[in-house]
């Protein structure tokens, strides 16, 4: 049997077993395990647990705040990486301090900061609020959630140091960072599973996506180790994509679907389509990400193996990646239609976070298809497109992962902290800078990369001045993401202290059209009516449709 299928069979079996155990519990051992886990989460920390108060929502809040700061760090590192792409000696003066800045290393550090710092912390922070909300219980341990956030930040710092110098005093720095990271991930998973165990409520689909995101990565590691594929090139490639499908894609899908519904006030468009996202995410190979699994290899402390791929592996890998477009389309469409409700436009675009979710959902499909082409090109050994793999991965991070997770975090934060961001205006400006800087800056760099690839294939020796100009412009425009991250960070932090308090009454913005009457054509919720822009003085008018065939349906306000 080939490597991909044998590893995936183990992965799928473990996922199904985990699902059954989560649903049915551990029987007589359940109470013991629950008590022991709770002890490990709080009492075992000793005096450490007394450092924090453990107020409701504090765990979610602290993760999101730290994620915002990592967003700024990752934007800065990526910007410097882009700049050094066209001006490699720009930071030569730092060599006096013994630091030789390289574009590739800055990109690597920027990816760690973006994926584990910003995106990872937004995912976990949002999940810490969303899962208890869906289950209608409190988080099992707020104290543990707060304390582990700082340990996670330390792990990201270690990973970034490791990306610049992988070995210090004979120690594998990235492996140490991974160990700390896994420790925190285990605590967060235990916390969330314990929260699930404390509830009798049936969990909605976004909640399951978050849970599979948490348990998926360790299961992927176990699958790779059990199948023995960890020392093969194809096994390492698969490990990288299983991590991408579980912790990143599944978790992002969960928090984005919840936030799209929560933020717009609309019900989730389709539970069936959300179910397709779960099934498709776990039973296909997600193509998003780089072709070289260097990040997974370094984090697992493995040595890079050459990719030797059999024909069967190639067919199965390409087929399962092509199938992964189904959950990508399902997620994108479900978010976009949920945001719009019954309208053709986003219901409440003024709300901070909604534009980010809308933007990320739009970018998901083109980048999913682009990544599919690059990965199949790599698996088949053609390698014509591997030169643009790095920039496509950066585009995925900055125009899909970060907008979707930042948008979800901005939606969740007011509910967790009790206050809105200080200024909706500044949030709007930050959105345009961050999204505009990312899309324009990276598209220009992509054009430059493609030009260089075409010239290299044509054996042209002289570098293109147009390509160089594009690369310069791309790096300068990408600086917008740094500014956007600064605006978001100051806005969110100030909002925690001086932002408007969250109250049950929906405040209608001045730029939103407030209708004087609302036609009630079928049963609906008050939340939905308010989300449509209605105010307390809006008259709700029962109307009845005329079913006369061949004519537009007139609405009339008098009861028959």
């Amino acid at each position, binding site marked *: 049997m080939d490597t991909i299928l044998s590893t995936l069979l183990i992965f799928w079996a473990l996922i199904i077993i985990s699902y059954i155990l989560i649903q049915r519990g551990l029987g007589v051992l359940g109470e013991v395990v629950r008590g022991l886990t709770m002890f490990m989460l709080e009492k075992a920390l000793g005096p450490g647990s007394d450092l924090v108060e453990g107020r409701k929502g504090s765990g979610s809040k602290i993760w999101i705040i730290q994620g915002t700061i990592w967003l700024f760090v990752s934007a800065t590192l990526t910007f410097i990486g882009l700049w050094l792409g066209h001006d490699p000696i720009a*930071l030569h003066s730092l060599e006096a301090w013994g630091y030789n800045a390289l574009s590739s290393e800055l990109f690597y550090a920027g990816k760690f900061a973006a994926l584990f710092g910003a995106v990872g912390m937004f995912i976990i922070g949002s999940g810490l609020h969303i899962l208890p909300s869906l289950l209608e219980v409190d988080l099992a341990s707020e104290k543990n959630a707060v304390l582990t956030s700082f340990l996670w930040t330390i792990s990201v710092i270690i990973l970034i140091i490791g990306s610049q110098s992988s070995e210090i005093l004979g120690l594998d720095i990235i492996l140490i960072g991974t160990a700390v990271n896994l420790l925190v991930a285990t605590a967060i998973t235990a916390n969330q599973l314990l929260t699930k165990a404390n509830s009798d409520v049936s969990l909605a689909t976004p909640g399951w996506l978050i849970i599979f995101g948490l348990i998926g990565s360790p299961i992927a590691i176990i699958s790779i180790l059990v199948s023995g594929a960890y020392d093969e090139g194809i096994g390492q490639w698969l490990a990288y994509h299983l991590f991408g499908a579980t912790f990143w894609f599944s978790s992002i899908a969960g928090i984005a679907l919840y936030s799209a519904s929560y933020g717009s006030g609309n019900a989730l468009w389709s539970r069936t389509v959300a179910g397709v996202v779960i099934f498709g995410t776990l039973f296909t190979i997600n193509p998003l990400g780089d072709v070289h699994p260097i990040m997974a290899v370094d984090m697992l402390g493995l040595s890079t193996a050459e990719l030797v791929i059999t024909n069967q592996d190639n067919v199965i890998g390409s087929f399962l990646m092509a199938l992964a477009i189904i959950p990508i389309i399902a997620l994108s469409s479900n978010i976009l239609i949920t945001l719009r409700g019954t309208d053709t436009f986003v219901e409440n675009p003024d709300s901070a976070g909604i534009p980010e979710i809308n933007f990320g959902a739009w970018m998901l499909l083109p980048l999913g298809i682009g990544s599919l082409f690059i990965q199949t090109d790599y698996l088949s050994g053609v390698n014509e497109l591997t030169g643009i793999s790095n920039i496509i991965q950066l585009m995925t991070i900055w125009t899909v992962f970060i907008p979707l997770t930042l948008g979800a975090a901005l939606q969740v934060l007011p509910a967790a902290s009790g206050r809105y961001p200080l200024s909706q205006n500044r949030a709007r400006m930050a959105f345009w800078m961050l999204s505009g800087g990312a899309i324009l800056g990276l598209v220009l760099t992509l054009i430059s990369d493609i030009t260089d690839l075409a010239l290299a294939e044509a054996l042209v020796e002289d570098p293109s001045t147009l390509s160089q100009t594009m690369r310069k412009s791309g790096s300068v425009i990408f600086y917008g993401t740094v*500014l956007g991250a600064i605006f978001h960070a100051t806005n969110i932090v100030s909002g925690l*202290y001086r932002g408007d308090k969250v109250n049950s009454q929906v405040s209608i913005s001045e730029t939103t*059209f407030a209708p004087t009457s609302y036609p009630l054509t079928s049963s609906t919720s008050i939340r939905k009516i308010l989300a449509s822009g209605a105010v307390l003085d809006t008259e709700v008018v029962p109307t009845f449709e005329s079913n006369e065939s061949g004519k537009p349906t007139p609405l009339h306000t008098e009861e028959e």
Partner: protein
Amino acid sequence: MSNDGSGKIGQFLQGEKEPSSSWVILVIGFVAALIFLVIYNILYPGQDLPVLSSLLPMFEGVFDSGIWFFILGAMIGAFAILGTILTEATIE
């Protein structure tokens, strides 16, 4: 405000409570930046834009790339975030 398609797109682009004239200032800023670049190219044809070390010779050999303008901006941003965290937490 109108509720047609263009009106709603305007709402989406325009921040809440933002004076509509703010877009005029943004456009003026954009045009002014373009004019500056064009005039600079006319006055100093073929020359790169000045960097920190050409403005302040004491930094020659250190800040001799345009990236330092941006890094200084990012450092100001980092201190703005740090300042916001500290002052918001301690403000009366």
